[in-house]
Every structure is written in C-alpha cells, then in structure tokens.
C-alpha cells in the first residue's frame, strides 16, 4: 500500500488504534485511550485534508490505491456488457466501453482505465488512449444515440498517448471528431472526472450536459510536470505549476467548468472506495433523472450552449 507523506500521521495513529484494540481483551482501561485516539485521528484527518495544497491533491488524484473506472463500473452498473473494438484497427484497452443498468436506468459507459498491477498497467497503456480508443468510444456514442441510451463517461487519464502509432493513426483527428460527435448527441451525457483529467485526452470524452468531479480529482490543460518544464525548464517544480494551473475540483467548480463536486470519504476515495462509488452513483442518478426530462433537441442545445459560453475575455 502506498502512503503519501501527508497521510503518514493518520496511518500511524490508525496503527496504534489497531494495536490497542488487539490488547483490549486483557485490559479494559484501554477503552478510554482508544476512544481518545480515534477522536484524534478524526480531527487529524479533517485538519490535514482541509489544508491540502494543490500538488497534494494531484497526488491523491493519482493515488495508486484510488478506485479506478473498473471499480466504479463494478459497484454502480448491473448487467454490464463490455463491447470491444473500433471496427477499424484494434481494441484499445485504455478505454472500456459497454452497456448496462444503473438501478433501472439503461446506460452506455465510456471509461478510461489506467490499470492496477504492472502487467495490467502496461496492457492498458497507463490509461493513455490511442486514436482507436476514441474511435471505439465514438462507436458506442453512435450506438447509444441510435437506441436512445444515456451516455456516462468516466475520465481518468494522464492524457492521450504521445507515440508514433498514435500520430500515424490521427490522434488529433480522433479527438476532434469525438468532441464534435459528443456535441451532437441527442441523449443525456454525463461525465465524471474520477481521478486525472489530462488535457485533450480527457476532453475527448468529456463534452457532457453535466460534468461532475470527485473531490480529489484534477482536470487540466497540461500536467503540472509538463507545465513546470516549459515555464522553468524544471519538471521538479511541479508543485508550483499545480498552484498556477488551478486544476483541482474546487477550482473547476469555482470557474463554472464543472457542475458539481462529488464528495469522497474522509482522507480520499482510497480510504473507503465503497463510499466514493455510492456517492457517485447517487449523483449520476440525480442528474440522469433531471436530464431525461429534456427532449433530444433540448439536450443537444443545452450542451452546445454550455460549451459555447466558456472563456474569459474583455471587450472594449
């Protein structure tokens, strides 16, 4: 288990509590001490997580134990049927697509998946899609549009893959076409940023009527490392770059780029994945129900108008 620096004090108290609990059978005087420690742990968690800086939030968003797309799909979607391939080149494991139900609502799922262990990470290319991944996503969008199935997308990627094959097969064109297709869909589209929203590679599946973000997720035009190496020619100054980029869920909510922050359990989703999954499910259902009241034409119009409105400028 990976423990981030700022999480260490919490883990230490937690360990002590577990040890004391083991000894509890022999000595009932410990009860009071355990209660004290548990209170302190709660307070400490609250204090630490209330004061996280942006770089620490980036680390939480990328935390190796953070629930991934597969965990959300497993926890939220019943009768999930995965669909494969772009019908052109290959099946890209960086993007999972399929059909299923959330409670009684049918949904089409498009989700970026980084992979858990080393072997899976390599297979899924660390969640960095190739063009065929976006073309598979577009296939499922068209399918959903045809059969009037709402589209749910889960974003978690460092970015679209920068490689020779990706360029040869038109990475830029695939992303552009995906953005365009999403704008034109006549079904409800909801996006949830569950971890890392890496630039165009995230945006390609994030043109939605409603965009949600988990409390400790990020969404940015460039990675803090990339930004730092451009600004200061020094990728180790990523924490400063994270501050400059204002890339946290709270920042994005303040800017009006996302519509709602989905709460995570104290300390982040990895402390209690079930709570994170349940919270997202509740939020998705709430928005899905309200979007289903709109006509196909209204859904498209709302999406177009929403993205047309983004931008900050002066006019003299």
């Amino acid at each position, binding site marked *: 288990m990976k423990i981030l620096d700022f999480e260490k004090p919490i883990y230490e108290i937690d360990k002590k509590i577990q040890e004391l609990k083991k000894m509890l059978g022999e000595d009932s005087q410990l009860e009071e001490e355990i209660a004290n420690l548990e209170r302190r742990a709660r307070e400490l968690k609250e204090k630490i997580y209330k004061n996280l800086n942006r770089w620490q939030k980036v680390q939480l968003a990328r935390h190796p134990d953070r629930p991934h797309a597969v965990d959300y799909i497993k926890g939220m979607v019943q009768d999930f049927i995965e669909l494969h391939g772009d019908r052109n080149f290959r099946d890209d494991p960086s993007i999972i697509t399929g059909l299923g139900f959330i409670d009684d609502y049918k949904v089409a799922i498009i989700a970026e998946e980084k992979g858990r262990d080393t072997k899976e990470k390599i297979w899924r290319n660390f969640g960095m899609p190739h063009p065929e991944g976006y073309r598979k996503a577009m296939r499922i969008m068209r399918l959903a549009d045809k059969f009037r199935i709402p589209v749910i997308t889960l974003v978690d990627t460092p*970015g*679209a*893959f*920068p*490689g*020779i094959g*990706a*360029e*040869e*097969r*038109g*990475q*830029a*064109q695939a*992303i*552009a*076409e995906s*953005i*365009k297709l999403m*704008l*034109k869909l006549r079904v409800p589209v909801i996006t949830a940023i569950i971890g890392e929203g890496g*630039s*165009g590679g995230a*945006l*390609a599946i994030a*043109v939605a009527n409603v965009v949600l973000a988990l409390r400790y997720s990020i*969404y*940015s*035009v*460039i990675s803090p490392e*990339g*930004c730092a190496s*451009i*600004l200061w*020619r020094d990728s180790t100054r990523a924490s400063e770059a994270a501050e*400059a*980029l*204002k*890339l946290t869920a709270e*920042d*994005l909510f303040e*800017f009006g*780029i996302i519509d709602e922050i989905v709460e995570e359990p104290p300390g982040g989703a990895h402390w209690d994945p079930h709570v994170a999954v349940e919270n997202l499910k509740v939020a998705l259902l709430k928005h899905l129900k309200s979007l289903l009241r709109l006509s196909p034409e209204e859904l498209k119009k709302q999406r*177009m108008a929403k*993205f*047309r409105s*983004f*931008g*900050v*400028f*002066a*006019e*003299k």
Partner: protein
Amino acid sequence: MLFRKRKKIEGEKKDIPEGLFLKCEKCGELFYKNQLEKNLWVCPKCGFHFRVGVDFYKKILFDDGDFIKHFAADLESQDPLDFPGYKEKLDRAKAKTGLKEAAVSGLARINGREVVFFLTDFRFLGGSMGSVYGEIFYRAAQEAIKRNIPFISLTSSGGGARMHEGIFSLMQMVKTTVAVVEMEEKGIPFISVLTDPTMGGVMASFASLGDIIIAEPGALLGFAGPRVIQQTIKQDLPTGFQRSEFLLEKGFVDMVVPRKELKSVLSKLLDILGGENGRSQTG
C-alpha cells in the same frame, strides 16, 4: 499542451530573423531577403516554406491585401488564473507583433468571392489558443452563417491550447467545435489550411474538422510535440514524421499545396463549394 522548442530538431523552423541576407534553414543556401520575399518566403532552391505572419497571408491571398471588415477586433485577453508572467508575456507579444491576439478574423475577397477568413500568428505566444482566440473563431463562424458565405481558417499554432489560461483554454477546443457544428448545420463550407506548425489542441479540434483540409509543404502537424514523443518512447522518430507529406500519405489531409498556388486552389474550391453555379469572375 504548449509545444516549445529547445534544441533544434530535424527541419525545425524559426521566425524570419533581421538582416539583409538569409540562409535557408533546410538547404543552407544564402539569399537576399527581398529575393525571398518576392518568392513568397519560399526557398527558390529547395522549396522550404519559411514561417510568415498573418499580414503576409492577407497580402498574398486577399484581393484587397487586407480584410474588407474586421470581426471581433475589440476582444482582449484577461488573466483568469493570475498565472505567473502571463500579463507580461501578452504585453511583449503585442509589442513584438503589433497584433492584439494570436488570432484575427474578418471579411475578405478571394478572386472576387467573399469569404470569412480566420488566421493565427505563430509569433504571438506560439499562436496558442486562449479564450479570445476561441471567441474570435466562434464569432467569425457566426458571420459566415449570417452572410451565408464560406469560412476559411489558416492556422499556425505550435502550442495548441494556451497553458496560461489553464482549463479555459482547453474549453476553447469545444467552443470552436461548436462553431464548426453550427456551420455544418447551415451548409457553410469550411476549409482548414494548416501551416507550420499546427499542433496540440488546435489540431485536435477545429483545424482537423474542415470539409477540406489543405497543408503547406513541410509543416509540422500533429497532436503531441515530437520532443514529447521522443521522451516518451525513447527512440528516434522516422524522417518526415508529422510533416504535411506524412499526413497526406496517412490520409489526414486532402492535399499539400505550395504557398504560390494557395490562392488559386482556394479560389477553385470556393467556386465548387461556394453555392451558386458558375465560376467567380477571375477564378
């Protein structure tokens, strides 16, 4: 992502430097500057296309040498993130180029036919796309719809989305695409001309969505910058990788058109796509 050059890579181009003589960056031949200018900044020996700014394209493409009417010329960039050094960078870019932003648009005539033209200039923060860039594009598209005339974009945007405006820049990829969808629904022809370099978020949005896509010879075109790719895959990139001719071969542009022929090719396309039957007066 902002693509920035550090050490020179194969065929990488630079802005036109000061001085009387100029060496071709590709073949190394020395030329008088005015000799090159007469040749539209194309090397007479090897055909290398130097980077030129928006004013030069206006001069060689438009009947009047300039817009008949400017659109959205009053828009000015803000600093929504309070990003380190951004205001100073904007000021310097304005002073250096005489432009207010990386993008301009207006009404122009090409061989007698009216079009809305959108151009970007690499010298202004790498031609990167921020909020003003996106808004200018959107409004220009609305003008084309209102007037029912074709829309042409000519891009030189090395960085794609402008880092200094963070998430707002990323969203311009969608805003410009909203404009493309609206033009499509009204049957407005959209021609995208890609010049050196067109990368990142610009290439991954409207620039790749033209009904017709034209590239100037030798332009760097793609999603990820070659340096980022090199660092990621840790191997050398093939010769000509991400250049116009490479994209033509892979099927991502319709044609590679030398600068000298650009106006006549655009004119012919406008005759065919532009609506009523018959050629334009001088087409």
